[in-house]
Protein backbone atom coordinates (compact mmCIF):
# COMPACT_ATOMS: atom_id res chain seq x y z
CA UNK A 1 0.00 0.00 0.00
CA UNK A 2 2.82 2.32 0.95
CA UNK A 3 4.51 1.60 -2.32
CA UNK A 4 1.37 2.44 -4.30
CA UNK A 5 0.89 5.70 -2.44
CA UNK A 6 4.49 6.68 -3.16
CA UNK A 7 4.13 5.89 -6.83
CA UNK A 8 0.90 7.92 -6.87
CA UNK A 9 2.83 10.74 -5.23
CA UNK A 10 5.45 10.61 -7.96
CA UNK A 11 2.76 10.51 -10.64
CA UNK A 12 1.16 13.65 -9.21
CA UNK A 13 4.55 15.37 -9.04
CA UNK A 14 5.05 14.40 -12.66
CA UNK A 15 1.73 15.98 -13.63
CA UNK A 16 2.52 19.14 -11.69
CA UNK A 17 5.89 19.41 -13.42
CA UNK A 18 4.07 19.78 -16.74
CA UNK A 19 1.32 21.82 -15.17
CA UNK A 20 0.28 24.04 -18.08
CA UNK A 21 -0.05 21.19 -20.52
CA UNK A 22 -1.95 19.07 -18.01
CA UNK A 23 -4.18 21.95 -16.99
CA UNK A 24 -5.13 22.41 -20.64
CA UNK A 25 -5.94 18.72 -20.94
CA UNK A 26 -7.96 18.88 -17.73
CA UNK A 27 -10.01 21.80 -19.00
CA UNK A 28 -10.72 20.26 -22.40
CA UNK A 29 -11.53 16.90 -20.87
CA UNK A 30 -13.81 18.44 -18.24
CA UNK A 31 -15.65 20.51 -20.83
CA UNK A 32 -16.14 17.50 -23.08
CA UNK A 33 -17.51 15.45 -20.20
CA UNK A 34 -19.72 18.34 -19.21
CA UNK A 35 -21.21 18.43 -22.68
CA UNK A 36 -21.68 14.68 -22.88
CA UNK A 37 -23.14 14.45 -19.39
CA UNK A 38 -25.40 17.45 -20.00
CA UNK A 39 -26.94 15.71 -22.97
CA UNK A 40 -27.44 12.55 -20.96
CA UNK A 41 -28.91 14.39 -17.96
CA UNK A 42 -31.15 16.62 -20.07
CA UNK A 43 -32.56 13.86 -22.20
CA UNK A 44 -33.06 11.57 -19.23
CA UNK A 45 -34.80 14.26 -17.20
CA UNK A 46 -37.05 15.29 -20.08
CA UNK A 47 -37.93 11.67 -20.71
CA UNK A 48 -38.81 11.20 -17.04
CA UNK A 49 -40.81 14.41 -17.07
CA UNK A 50 -42.78 13.40 -20.13
CA UNK A 51 -43.45 9.92 -18.82
CA UNK A 52 -44.84 11.27 -15.54
CA UNK A 53 -46.82 14.15 -16.95
CA UNK A 54 -48.41 12.29 -19.82
CA UNK A 55 -49.63 9.39 -17.72
CA UNK A 56 -53.00 11.10 -17.68
CA UNK A 57 -53.15 11.75 -21.39
CA UNK A 58 -56.18 10.22 -23.13
CA UNK A 59 -56.04 6.40 -23.40
CA UNK A 60 -56.62 6.75 -27.13
CA UNK A 61 -56.84 9.60 -29.58
CA UNK A 62 -58.64 8.85 -32.82
CA UNK A 63 -57.73 10.92 -35.87
CA UNK A 64 -59.44 10.87 -39.24
CA UNK A 65 -57.23 10.51 -42.30
CA UNK A 66 -57.98 11.80 -45.79
CA UNK A 67 -55.54 11.49 -48.68
CA UNK A 68 -52.93 10.49 -46.15
CA UNK A 69 -53.31 13.64 -44.10
CA UNK A 70 -54.99 14.45 -40.83
CA UNK A 71 -58.57 15.56 -41.47
CA UNK A 72 -61.40 16.83 -39.25
CA UNK A 73 -63.33 13.91 -37.77
CA UNK A 74 -67.15 13.62 -37.81
CA UNK A 75 -68.50 13.96 -34.28
CA UNK A 76 -70.73 10.92 -34.83
CA UNK A 77 -67.61 8.75 -35.01
CA UNK A 78 -67.49 9.20 -31.24
CA UNK A 79 -70.83 7.35 -30.99
CA UNK A 80 -69.46 4.50 -33.11
CA UNK A 81 -66.37 4.29 -30.89
CA UNK A 82 -68.43 4.27 -27.70
CA UNK A 83 -70.26 1.18 -28.96
CA UNK A 84 -67.00 -0.82 -28.94
CA UNK A 85 -66.75 -3.10 -25.90
CA UNK A 86 -64.32 -1.77 -23.33
CA UNK A 87 -64.76 1.89 -24.21
CA UNK A 88 -65.92 4.01 -21.30
CA UNK A 89 -66.28 7.33 -23.07
CA UNK A 90 -65.40 8.99 -26.37
CA UNK A 91 -65.25 12.79 -26.39
CA UNK A 92 -64.58 15.02 -29.38
CA UNK A 93 -61.61 17.37 -28.96
CA UNK A 94 -61.55 20.74 -30.62
CA UNK A 95 -58.13 22.31 -30.94
CA UNK A 96 -55.86 23.82 -33.56
CA UNK A 97 -52.91 26.08 -34.29
CA UNK A 98 -52.79 29.81 -34.66
CA UNK A 99 -49.95 31.68 -36.30
CA UNK A 100 -49.56 35.10 -34.72
CA UNK A 101 -48.08 37.34 -37.40
CA UNK A 102 -47.47 40.08 -34.88
CA UNK A 103 -44.98 38.03 -32.91
CA UNK A 104 -44.28 35.37 -35.55
CA UNK A 105 -45.07 32.69 -33.04
CA UNK A 106 -47.38 29.71 -33.11
CA UNK A 107 -50.00 29.15 -30.46
CA UNK A 108 -51.97 26.01 -29.71
CA UNK A 109 -55.63 26.93 -29.32
CA UNK A 110 -57.73 24.56 -27.24
CA UNK A 111 -61.53 24.49 -26.74
CA UNK A 112 -63.06 23.45 -23.43
CA UNK A 113 -66.58 22.98 -22.19
CA UNK A 114 -68.00 25.80 -20.08
CA UNK A 115 -68.53 24.98 -16.46
CA UNK A 116 -65.27 23.03 -16.21
CA UNK A 117 -64.00 22.98 -12.64
CA UNK A 118 -61.10 25.31 -11.87
CA UNK A 119 -57.55 24.00 -12.05
CA UNK A 120 -54.86 24.48 -9.43
CA UNK A 121 -52.33 25.65 -11.95
CA UNK A 122 -54.47 28.44 -13.37
CA UNK A 123 -53.99 31.85 -11.84
CA UNK A 124 -57.42 33.35 -12.29
CA UNK A 125 -60.01 31.16 -13.97
CA UNK A 126 -60.67 29.23 -17.15
CA UNK A 127 -62.97 30.92 -19.73
CA UNK A 128 -66.67 30.46 -19.08
CA UNK A 129 -67.95 32.72 -21.83
CA UNK A 130 -67.24 33.17 -25.52
CA UNK A 131 -65.42 36.46 -24.97
CA UNK A 132 -62.91 35.03 -22.54
CA UNK A 133 -59.67 33.10 -22.70
CA UNK A 134 -56.92 31.65 -20.56
CA UNK A 135 -53.33 31.73 -21.79
CA UNK A 136 -49.95 30.18 -21.10
CA UNK A 137 -46.99 32.22 -19.80
CA UNK A 138 -45.32 32.16 -23.20
CA UNK A 139 -48.25 33.86 -24.86
CA UNK A 140 -48.53 36.32 -21.98
CA UNK A 141 -44.84 37.15 -22.25
CA UNK A 142 -44.65 37.55 -26.02
CA UNK A 143 -47.79 39.66 -26.10
CA UNK A 144 -47.03 41.47 -22.82
CA UNK A 145 -50.50 40.79 -21.45
CA UNK A 146 -51.89 39.39 -18.21
CA UNK A 147 -55.13 38.64 -16.39
CA UNK A 148 -57.63 41.40 -17.07
CA UNK A 149 -55.98 42.43 -20.34
CA UNK A 150 -57.24 41.66 -23.82
CA UNK A 151 -55.79 39.19 -26.29
CA UNK A 152 -56.64 40.14 -29.86
CA UNK A 153 -56.30 37.40 -32.48
CA UNK A 154 -57.55 37.17 -36.06
CA UNK A 155 -60.25 34.60 -36.81
CA UNK A 156 -60.94 32.62 -40.00
CA UNK A 157 -62.88 35.55 -41.46
CA UNK A 158 -59.83 37.73 -41.07
CA UNK A 159 -61.51 39.68 -38.30
CA UNK A 160 -59.65 40.62 -35.16
CA UNK A 161 -61.38 39.25 -32.07
CA UNK A 162 -60.66 40.46 -28.57
CA UNK A 163 -60.75 38.04 -25.67
CA UNK A 164 -60.62 39.05 -22.06
CA UNK A 165 -57.87 37.11 -20.30
CA UNK A 166 -59.47 35.51 -17.28
CA UNK A 167 -56.59 33.31 -16.31
CA UNK A 168 -52.96 32.46 -16.98
CA UNK A 169 -51.35 29.09 -16.45
CA UNK A 170 -48.69 29.16 -13.80
CA UNK A 171 -45.01 28.94 -14.70
CA UNK A 172 -44.78 25.51 -13.10
CA UNK A 173 -46.83 24.16 -15.98
CA UNK A 174 -44.71 25.77 -18.71
CA UNK A 175 -43.70 22.46 -20.18
CA UNK A 176 -47.35 21.74 -20.88
CA UNK A 177 -49.03 25.10 -21.37
CA UNK A 178 -46.49 27.61 -22.56
CA UNK A 179 -48.11 28.31 -25.92
CA UNK A 180 -51.71 27.55 -25.00
CA UNK A 181 -54.72 29.76 -25.64
CA UNK A 182 -57.88 28.22 -24.14
CA UNK A 183 -61.28 29.30 -25.43
CA UNK A 184 -64.74 27.91 -24.87
CA UNK A 185 -65.50 25.11 -27.32
CA UNK A 186 -68.23 26.96 -29.17
CA UNK A 187 -66.10 30.04 -29.53
CA UNK A 188 -63.15 28.01 -30.83
CA UNK A 189 -65.37 26.44 -33.48
CA UNK A 190 -66.59 29.85 -34.54
CA UNK A 191 -63.08 31.29 -34.50
CA UNK A 192 -61.64 28.59 -36.79
CA UNK A 193 -64.84 28.25 -38.82
CA UNK A 194 -65.15 24.54 -37.94
CA UNK A 195 -68.38 22.83 -39.03
CA UNK A 196 -70.67 21.96 -36.13
CA UNK A 197 -70.52 18.24 -36.89
CA UNK A 198 -66.74 18.04 -36.98
CA UNK A 199 -64.00 17.89 -34.37
CA UNK A 200 -60.23 17.86 -34.50
CA UNK A 201 -60.07 14.34 -33.08
CA UNK A 202 -61.69 12.11 -30.50
CA UNK A 203 -60.30 11.35 -27.05
CA UNK A 204 -61.23 7.89 -25.81
CA UNK A 205 -61.33 6.58 -22.24
CA UNK A 206 -61.32 2.83 -21.66
CA UNK A 207 -62.27 0.68 -18.67
CA UNK A 208 -59.14 -1.44 -18.70
CA UNK A 209 -55.85 -0.01 -19.88
CA UNK A 210 -54.59 -3.42 -20.94
CA UNK A 211 -57.28 -3.58 -23.59
CA UNK A 212 -56.14 -0.42 -25.35
CA UNK A 213 -54.29 -2.16 -28.23
CA UNK A 214 -57.28 -4.41 -28.90
CA UNK A 215 -59.69 -1.50 -28.83
CA UNK A 216 -57.38 0.49 -31.12
CA UNK A 217 -57.38 -2.36 -33.60
CA UNK A 218 -61.16 -2.58 -33.43
CA UNK A 219 -61.51 1.16 -34.03
CA UNK A 220 -59.42 0.74 -37.17
CA UNK A 221 -61.68 -2.03 -38.26
CA UNK A 222 -64.94 -0.20 -37.55
CA UNK A 223 -63.70 3.14 -38.87
CA UNK A 224 -61.14 2.32 -41.55
CA UNK A 225 -60.42 5.93 -42.38
CA UNK A 226 -59.19 6.68 -38.87
CA UNK A 227 -55.91 6.27 -37.09
CA UNK A 228 -55.97 5.57 -33.36
CA UNK A 229 -53.02 6.71 -31.26
CA UNK A 230 -52.56 4.97 -27.94
CA UNK A 231 -51.27 6.56 -24.74
CA UNK A 232 -48.37 4.18 -24.84
CA UNK A 233 -47.38 5.54 -28.22
CA UNK A 234 -47.72 9.06 -26.91
CA UNK A 235 -45.34 8.36 -24.05
CA UNK A 236 -42.96 6.39 -26.24
CA UNK A 237 -42.84 9.28 -28.67
CA UNK A 238 -41.05 11.20 -26.01
CA UNK A 239 -38.80 8.27 -25.22
CA UNK A 240 -37.72 8.45 -28.83
CA UNK A 241 -37.63 12.26 -28.92
CA UNK A 242 -35.34 12.45 -25.94
CA UNK A 243 -33.29 9.49 -26.90
CA UNK A 244 -29.71 10.69 -26.91
CA UNK A 245 -28.99 8.24 -29.64
CA UNK A 246 -31.02 10.12 -32.23
CA UNK A 247 -31.18 13.38 -34.10
CA UNK A 248 -29.19 16.41 -33.19
CA UNK A 249 -28.41 15.05 -29.76
CA UNK A 250 -26.57 12.21 -31.40
CA UNK A 251 -24.64 14.66 -33.55
CA UNK A 252 -23.52 16.72 -30.57
CA UNK A 253 -22.85 13.65 -28.49
CA UNK A 254 -20.76 12.01 -31.19
CA UNK A 255 -18.89 15.23 -31.94
CA UNK A 256 -17.93 15.55 -28.31
CA UNK A 257 -16.99 11.89 -28.10
CA UNK A 258 -14.92 12.13 -31.28
CA UNK A 259 -13.16 15.23 -29.97
CA UNK A 260 -12.37 13.24 -26.88
CA UNK A 261 -11.07 10.30 -28.91
CA UNK A 262 -8.81 12.66 -30.83
CA UNK A 263 -7.42 13.89 -27.54
CA UNK A 264 -6.80 10.35 -26.36
CA UNK A 265 -5.38 9.25 -29.71
CA UNK A 266 -3.00 12.15 -29.78
CA UNK A 267 -1.68 10.99 -26.44
CA UNK A 268 -1.57 7.38 -27.50
CA UNK A 269 0.44 7.84 -30.66
CA UNK A 270 3.67 8.52 -28.94
CA UNK A 271 5.55 9.75 -25.94
CA UNK A 272 8.12 12.49 -26.06
CA UNK A 273 11.85 11.83 -26.02
CA UNK A 274 11.95 13.39 -22.57
CA UNK A 275 9.38 10.97 -21.23
CA UNK A 276 11.25 8.05 -22.79
CA UNK A 277 14.43 9.22 -21.15
CA UNK A 278 12.69 9.54 -17.82
CA UNK A 279 11.34 6.00 -18.04
CA UNK A 280 14.80 4.72 -18.96
CA UNK A 281 16.33 6.42 -15.93
CA UNK A 282 13.67 5.07 -13.60
CA UNK A 283 14.28 1.58 -14.91
CA UNK A 284 18.01 1.98 -14.54
CA UNK A 285 17.80 3.03 -10.92
CA UNK A 286 15.57 0.15 -9.88
CA UNK A 287 11.97 0.64 -11.05
CA UNK A 288 10.63 -2.44 -12.80
CA UNK A 289 8.14 -2.56 -15.64
CA UNK A 290 5.10 -2.90 -13.40
CA UNK A 291 6.19 0.14 -11.37
CA UNK A 292 6.48 2.23 -14.54
CA UNK A 293 3.09 1.05 -15.79
CA UNK A 294 1.55 1.78 -12.42
CA UNK A 295 3.05 5.25 -12.59
CA UNK A 296 1.47 5.83 -16.00
CA UNK A 297 -1.80 4.40 -14.75
CA UNK A 298 -1.89 6.91 -11.91
CA UNK A 299 -0.99 9.76 -14.23
CA UNK A 300 -3.91 8.87 -16.48
CA UNK A 301 -6.30 8.06 -13.68
CA UNK A 302 -5.60 11.23 -11.72
CA UNK A 303 -6.41 13.48 -14.68
CA UNK A 304 -9.33 11.50 -16.02
CA UNK A 305 -11.07 10.81 -12.71
CA UNK A 306 -10.77 14.44 -11.64
CA UNK A 307 -12.03 15.66 -15.01
CA UNK A 308 -14.83 13.15 -15.16
CA UNK A 309 -16.19 14.00 -11.73
CA UNK A 310 -15.75 17.72 -12.27
CA UNK A 311 -17.45 17.49 -15.67
CA UNK A 312 -20.36 15.55 -14.20
CA UNK A 313 -20.84 18.09 -11.41
CA UNK A 314 -20.66 20.93 -13.93
CA UNK A 315 -23.20 19.15 -16.14
CA UNK A 316 -25.59 18.65 -13.24
CA UNK A 317 -25.41 22.31 -12.27
CA UNK A 318 -25.68 23.36 -15.93
CA UNK A 319 -28.79 21.26 -16.59
CA UNK A 320 -30.67 21.48 -13.32
CA UNK A 321 -29.72 24.93 -12.07
CA UNK A 322 -29.13 26.79 -15.31
CA UNK A 323 -31.74 24.97 -17.46
CA UNK A 324 -29.10 23.65 -19.87
CA UNK A 325 -28.52 27.15 -21.23
CA UNK A 326 -25.55 26.04 -23.35
CA UNK A 327 -27.63 23.40 -25.10
CA UNK A 328 -30.76 25.55 -25.33
CA UNK A 329 -29.90 27.08 -28.72
CA UNK A 330 -29.56 23.57 -30.14
CA UNK A 331 -32.76 22.28 -28.61
CA UNK A 332 -34.76 25.41 -29.23
CA UNK A 333 -34.65 25.22 -33.00
CA UNK A 334 -36.75 27.91 -34.58
CA UNK A 335 -39.33 28.06 -31.83
CA UNK A 336 -40.16 31.62 -30.95
CA UNK A 337 -41.94 30.42 -27.85
CA UNK A 338 -39.60 28.10 -26.02
CA UNK A 339 -40.42 27.51 -22.39
CA UNK A 340 -38.11 28.25 -19.53
CA UNK A 341 -38.39 25.24 -17.40
CA UNK A 342 -36.67 23.91 -14.32
CA UNK A 343 -36.36 20.19 -14.71
CA UNK A 344 -36.71 17.89 -11.77
CA UNK A 345 -33.19 16.68 -11.05
CA UNK A 346 -32.83 13.08 -11.96
CA UNK A 347 -29.74 11.09 -12.90
CA UNK A 348 -29.53 7.71 -14.47
CA UNK A 349 -26.42 6.30 -12.78
CA UNK A 350 -26.19 3.54 -15.33
CA UNK A 351 -25.66 6.13 -18.07
CA UNK A 352 -23.03 7.93 -16.01
CA UNK A 353 -21.20 4.67 -15.37
CA UNK A 354 -21.26 3.86 -19.08
CA UNK A 355 -19.96 7.31 -19.91
CA UNK A 356 -17.27 6.88 -17.30
CA UNK A 357 -16.21 3.66 -18.93
CA UNK A 358 -16.23 5.21 -22.37
CA UNK A 359 -13.97 8.06 -21.32
CA UNK A 360 -11.88 7.22 -18.28
CA UNK A 361 -10.78 3.77 -19.43
CA UNK A 362 -9.65 4.83 -22.91
CA UNK A 363 -7.84 7.82 -21.48
CA UNK A 364 -5.92 5.74 -18.98
CA UNK A 365 -5.14 3.25 -21.72
CA UNK A 366 -3.90 6.06 -23.94
CA UNK A 367 -1.52 7.10 -21.17
CA UNK A 368 -0.21 3.61 -20.43
CA UNK A 369 0.03 2.14 -23.92
CA UNK A 370 2.57 4.52 -25.47
CA UNK A 371 4.82 4.08 -22.46
CA UNK A 372 4.62 0.30 -22.73
CA UNK A 373 7.48 -0.10 -25.16
CA UNK A 374 9.75 2.14 -23.14
CA UNK A 375 8.71 0.41 -19.94
CA UNK A 376 9.59 -3.08 -21.15
CA UNK A 377 12.90 -2.11 -22.73
CA UNK A 378 15.98 -3.29 -20.88
CA UNK A 379 17.48 -0.37 -19.00
CA UNK A 380 20.93 -0.98 -20.44
CA UNK A 381 19.99 1.34 -23.29
CA UNK A 382 20.17 4.12 -20.71
CA UNK A 383 23.82 3.34 -20.23
CA UNK A 384 24.39 4.10 -23.87
CA UNK A 385 22.86 7.58 -23.94
Amino acid sequence: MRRHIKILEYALSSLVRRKYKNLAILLVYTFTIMLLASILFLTHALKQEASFLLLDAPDLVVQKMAAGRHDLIPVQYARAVEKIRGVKKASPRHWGYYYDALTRSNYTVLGIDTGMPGLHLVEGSLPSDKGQCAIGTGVAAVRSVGVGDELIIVDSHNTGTAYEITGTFSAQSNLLTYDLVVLTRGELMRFFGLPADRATDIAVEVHNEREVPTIAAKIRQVLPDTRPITKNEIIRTYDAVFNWRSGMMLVIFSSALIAFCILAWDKATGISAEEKREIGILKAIGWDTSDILELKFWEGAALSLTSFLLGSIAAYVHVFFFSASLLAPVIKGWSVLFPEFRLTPSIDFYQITVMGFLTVVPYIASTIVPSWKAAITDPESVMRT
Partner: protein
Amino acid sequence: MEHLIHTEEITKIYNPRKPDEMRALEGVSIQINRGEVVALKGPSGSGKTTLLSLIGCMGRPTSGRIVVEGRDVAKLPERFLTAIRRSTFGFIFQQFNLLRDVSVIDNVLLPLYPVDIDVPAMQQRADRLLDTLGIGAKRHLKVKQLSGGEQQRVAIARALINKPTVIIADEPTAHLDRQLATDLLAILEQLNREGKTIVIATHDPLVHEHPFITKTIGMRNGRIEGVVQR
Protein backbone atom coordinates in the same frame (compact mmCIF):
# COMPACT_ATOMS: atom_id res chain seq x y z
CA MET B 1 37.17 -18.06 -2.50
CA GLU B 2 33.61 -17.14 -3.34
CA HIS B 3 33.55 -14.13 -5.58
CA LEU B 4 31.02 -11.36 -5.14
CA ILE B 5 30.43 -11.28 -8.87
CA HIS B 6 31.74 -13.56 -11.57
CA THR B 7 30.96 -14.14 -15.18
CA GLU B 8 31.52 -17.29 -17.26
CA GLU B 9 31.99 -16.98 -21.01
CA ILE B 10 29.36 -14.32 -21.44
CA THR B 11 28.53 -13.17 -24.93
CA LYS B 12 26.32 -10.28 -25.93
CA ILE B 13 25.06 -9.87 -29.48
CA TYR B 14 22.85 -6.92 -30.40
CA ASN B 15 20.40 -7.32 -33.33
CA PRO B 16 21.32 -10.99 -33.96
CA ARG B 17 20.94 -12.30 -37.54
CA LYS B 18 20.24 -8.80 -38.82
CA PRO B 19 22.38 -6.67 -41.13
CA ASP B 20 23.36 -4.41 -38.19
CA GLU B 21 24.31 -7.30 -35.91
CA MET B 22 26.93 -6.28 -33.35
CA ARG B 23 28.93 -8.64 -31.14
CA ALA B 24 29.64 -6.47 -28.11
CA LEU B 25 31.12 -9.18 -25.87
CA GLU B 26 32.75 -12.51 -26.74
CA GLY B 27 33.36 -15.16 -24.12
CA VAL B 28 34.10 -12.77 -21.24
CA SER B 29 34.95 -14.33 -17.90
CA ILE B 30 35.86 -12.10 -14.96
CA GLN B 31 35.80 -12.22 -11.17
CA ILE B 32 35.16 -9.38 -8.77
CA ASN B 33 35.75 -9.86 -5.06
CA ARG B 34 34.11 -8.09 -2.18
CA GLY B 35 35.89 -4.83 -1.34
CA GLU B 36 37.79 -4.60 -4.63
CA VAL B 37 37.99 -1.52 -6.79
CA VAL B 38 38.00 -2.77 -10.36
CA ALA B 39 38.75 -0.60 -13.37
CA LEU B 40 37.59 -1.75 -16.81
CA LYS B 41 40.04 -0.21 -19.19
CA GLY B 42 39.81 -0.03 -22.97
CA PRO B 43 39.10 2.18 -25.95
CA SER B 44 35.64 3.22 -27.06
CA GLY B 45 33.69 0.23 -28.39
CA SER B 46 35.66 -2.34 -26.42
CA GLY B 47 32.57 -3.53 -24.56
CA LYS B 48 33.17 -1.90 -21.18
CA THR B 49 29.74 -0.33 -20.95
CA THR B 50 28.07 -3.55 -22.09
CA LEU B 51 29.93 -5.59 -19.47
CA LEU B 52 29.05 -3.07 -16.78
CA SER B 53 25.38 -3.12 -17.70
CA LEU B 54 25.27 -6.93 -17.66
CA ILE B 55 26.98 -7.36 -14.31
CA GLY B 56 24.76 -4.56 -12.98
CA CYS B 57 21.69 -6.61 -13.98
CA MET B 58 20.54 -4.04 -16.49
CA GLY B 59 20.26 -6.60 -19.27
CA ARG B 60 20.82 -10.27 -20.02
CA PRO B 61 23.72 -11.87 -21.89
CA THR B 62 23.07 -13.75 -25.11
CA SER B 63 24.91 -16.71 -23.58
CA GLY B 64 26.98 -17.50 -20.51
CA ARG B 65 26.49 -17.18 -16.78
CA ILE B 66 26.58 -14.19 -14.47
CA VAL B 67 26.63 -14.95 -10.77
CA VAL B 68 25.98 -12.14 -8.28
CA GLU B 69 26.27 -12.96 -4.60
CA GLY B 70 25.85 -16.62 -5.45
CA ARG B 71 22.80 -16.19 -7.70
CA ASP B 72 22.82 -16.85 -11.42
CA VAL B 73 21.13 -13.73 -12.73
CA ALA B 74 21.52 -14.39 -16.47
CA LYS B 75 18.15 -16.07 -16.83
CA LEU B 76 16.17 -14.47 -14.00
CA PRO B 77 12.74 -12.97 -14.75
CA GLU B 78 12.67 -9.20 -14.88
CA ARG B 79 11.09 -8.70 -11.49
CA PHE B 80 13.88 -10.55 -9.69
CA LEU B 81 16.54 -8.89 -11.77
CA THR B 82 15.16 -5.50 -10.82
CA ALA B 83 15.05 -6.42 -7.16
CA ILE B 84 18.70 -7.49 -7.22
CA ARG B 85 19.72 -4.42 -9.18
CA ARG B 86 17.92 -2.22 -6.69
CA SER B 87 19.35 -3.81 -3.56
CA THR B 88 22.88 -4.66 -4.70
CA PHE B 89 23.95 -1.98 -7.14
CA GLY B 90 24.23 1.78 -7.20
CA PHE B 91 24.87 3.41 -10.60
CA ILE B 92 26.75 6.53 -11.48
CA PHE B 93 26.18 7.24 -15.16
CA GLN B 94 28.42 9.08 -17.54
CA GLN B 95 25.82 11.78 -18.15
CA PHE B 96 24.55 11.58 -14.57
CA ASN B 97 21.04 10.85 -15.90
CA LEU B 98 19.34 13.05 -13.37
CA LEU B 99 15.87 14.51 -13.91
CA ARG B 100 16.72 18.13 -14.52
CA ASP B 101 13.33 19.64 -13.64
CA VAL B 102 13.08 17.70 -10.42
CA SER B 103 14.57 18.85 -7.13
CA VAL B 104 17.80 17.46 -5.72
CA ILE B 105 16.12 15.57 -2.93
CA ASP B 106 13.46 14.10 -5.20
CA ASN B 107 16.13 12.87 -7.57
CA VAL B 108 17.94 11.20 -4.72
CA LEU B 109 14.74 9.61 -3.44
CA LEU B 110 13.72 8.18 -6.83
CA PRO B 111 15.13 4.66 -6.29
CA LEU B 112 13.17 4.37 -3.06
CA TYR B 113 9.68 5.03 -4.45
CA PRO B 114 8.92 1.46 -5.43
CA VAL B 115 10.47 0.11 -2.24
CA ASP B 116 8.44 -0.62 0.85
CA ILE B 117 9.94 1.99 3.14
CA ASP B 118 8.03 4.84 4.74
CA VAL B 119 8.41 8.43 3.69
CA PRO B 120 10.04 9.85 6.85
CA ALA B 121 12.71 7.11 6.77
CA MET B 122 13.30 7.82 3.08
CA GLN B 123 13.75 11.51 3.69
CA GLN B 124 16.05 10.96 6.65
CA ARG B 125 18.35 8.78 4.59
CA ALA B 126 18.41 11.27 1.75
CA ASP B 127 19.10 14.22 4.03
CA ARG B 128 22.00 12.42 5.69
CA LEU B 129 23.56 11.52 2.35
CA LEU B 130 23.20 15.01 0.95
CA ASP B 131 24.73 16.50 4.07
CA THR B 132 27.64 14.07 3.93
CA LEU B 133 28.27 15.03 0.34
CA GLY B 134 28.10 18.72 1.17
CA ILE B 135 25.00 19.67 -0.82
CA GLY B 136 22.38 19.49 1.91
CA ALA B 137 21.64 23.20 1.64
CA LYS B 138 20.59 22.80 -2.01
CA ARG B 139 18.17 19.96 -1.47
CA HIS B 140 15.13 21.87 -2.74
CA LEU B 141 16.78 23.40 -5.80
CA LYS B 142 16.09 21.90 -9.22
CA VAL B 143 19.01 19.91 -10.60
CA LYS B 144 19.33 22.22 -13.60
CA GLN B 145 20.20 25.03 -11.19
CA LEU B 146 23.32 23.18 -9.95
CA SER B 147 26.89 23.22 -11.20
CA GLY B 148 28.48 20.16 -12.79
CA GLY B 149 30.24 19.19 -9.60
CA GLU B 150 27.11 19.51 -7.53
CA GLN B 151 25.14 17.42 -10.01
CA GLN B 152 27.83 14.76 -9.77
CA ARG B 153 27.30 14.63 -6.01
CA VAL B 154 23.56 14.33 -6.46
CA ALA B 155 24.21 11.40 -8.79
CA ILE B 156 26.41 9.80 -6.15
CA ALA B 157 23.82 10.34 -3.44
CA ARG B 158 21.19 8.70 -5.63
CA ALA B 159 23.51 5.77 -6.24
CA LEU B 160 23.97 5.31 -2.50
CA ILE B 161 20.39 5.75 -1.28
CA ASN B 162 19.57 2.05 -1.47
CA LYS B 163 22.66 1.11 0.55
CA PRO B 164 24.13 -0.92 -2.30
CA THR B 165 26.96 -3.40 -1.98
CA VAL B 166 28.47 -2.48 -5.33
CA ILE B 167 28.92 0.92 -6.96
CA ILE B 168 29.05 0.86 -10.75
CA ALA B 169 30.41 3.94 -12.44
CA ASP B 170 30.49 4.32 -16.22
CA GLU B 171 33.10 6.86 -17.38
CA PRO B 172 32.43 8.97 -14.28
CA THR B 173 35.14 11.52 -15.06
CA ALA B 174 34.32 11.95 -18.77
CA HIS B 175 32.64 15.35 -18.34
CA LEU B 176 34.55 16.61 -15.36
CA ASP B 177 37.53 18.89 -15.07
CA ARG B 178 40.62 17.69 -13.32
CA GLN B 179 39.68 19.03 -9.90
CA LEU B 180 36.19 17.58 -9.98
CA ALA B 181 37.55 14.28 -11.22
CA THR B 182 39.97 14.16 -8.31
CA ASP B 183 37.17 15.01 -5.87
CA LEU B 184 35.05 12.20 -7.30
CA LEU B 185 37.81 9.68 -6.92
CA ALA B 186 38.30 10.79 -3.33
CA ILE B 187 34.63 10.13 -2.62
CA LEU B 188 34.82 6.71 -4.26
CA GLU B 189 37.92 5.90 -2.26
CA GLN B 190 36.10 6.81 0.93
CA LEU B 191 33.15 4.60 -0.05
CA ASN B 192 35.53 1.73 -0.67
CA ARG B 193 37.04 2.19 2.76
CA GLU B 194 33.51 1.90 4.13
CA GLY B 195 33.28 -1.51 2.53
CA LYS B 196 31.71 -0.88 -0.87
CA THR B 197 32.93 -2.75 -3.93
CA ILE B 198 33.49 -0.45 -6.87
CA VAL B 199 33.58 -1.18 -10.60
CA ILE B 200 34.56 1.66 -12.90
CA ALA B 201 34.59 1.64 -16.70
CA THR B 202 37.01 4.26 -17.92
CA HIS B 203 39.61 5.22 -20.46
CA ASP B 204 40.81 8.07 -18.27
CA PRO B 205 44.35 7.35 -17.05
CA LEU B 206 43.67 9.49 -13.98
CA VAL B 207 41.32 6.75 -12.86
CA HIS B 208 43.03 3.52 -13.81
CA GLU B 209 46.38 4.76 -12.53
CA HIS B 210 44.92 5.85 -9.18
CA PRO B 211 46.40 3.92 -6.24
CA PHE B 212 43.00 2.84 -4.87
CA ILE B 213 42.34 0.67 -7.94
CA THR B 214 42.97 -2.94 -6.87
CA LYS B 215 42.42 -4.66 -10.23
CA THR B 216 42.52 -3.48 -13.82
CA ILE B 217 40.78 -5.49 -16.54
CA GLY B 218 41.81 -4.55 -20.07
CA MET B 219 39.31 -4.99 -22.88
CA ARG B 220 39.43 -4.79 -26.64
CA ASN B 221 36.84 -5.69 -29.26
CA GLY B 222 34.58 -7.30 -26.71
CA ARG B 223 37.26 -9.60 -25.29
CA ILE B 224 39.42 -9.52 -22.19
CA GLU B 225 42.94 -8.52 -23.05
CA GLY B 226 44.46 -8.90 -19.64
CA VAL B 227 43.92 -8.65 -15.90
CA VAL B 228 46.35 -6.85 -13.64
CA GLN B 229 45.95 -7.42 -9.94
CA ARG B 230 47.66 -4.94 -7.61
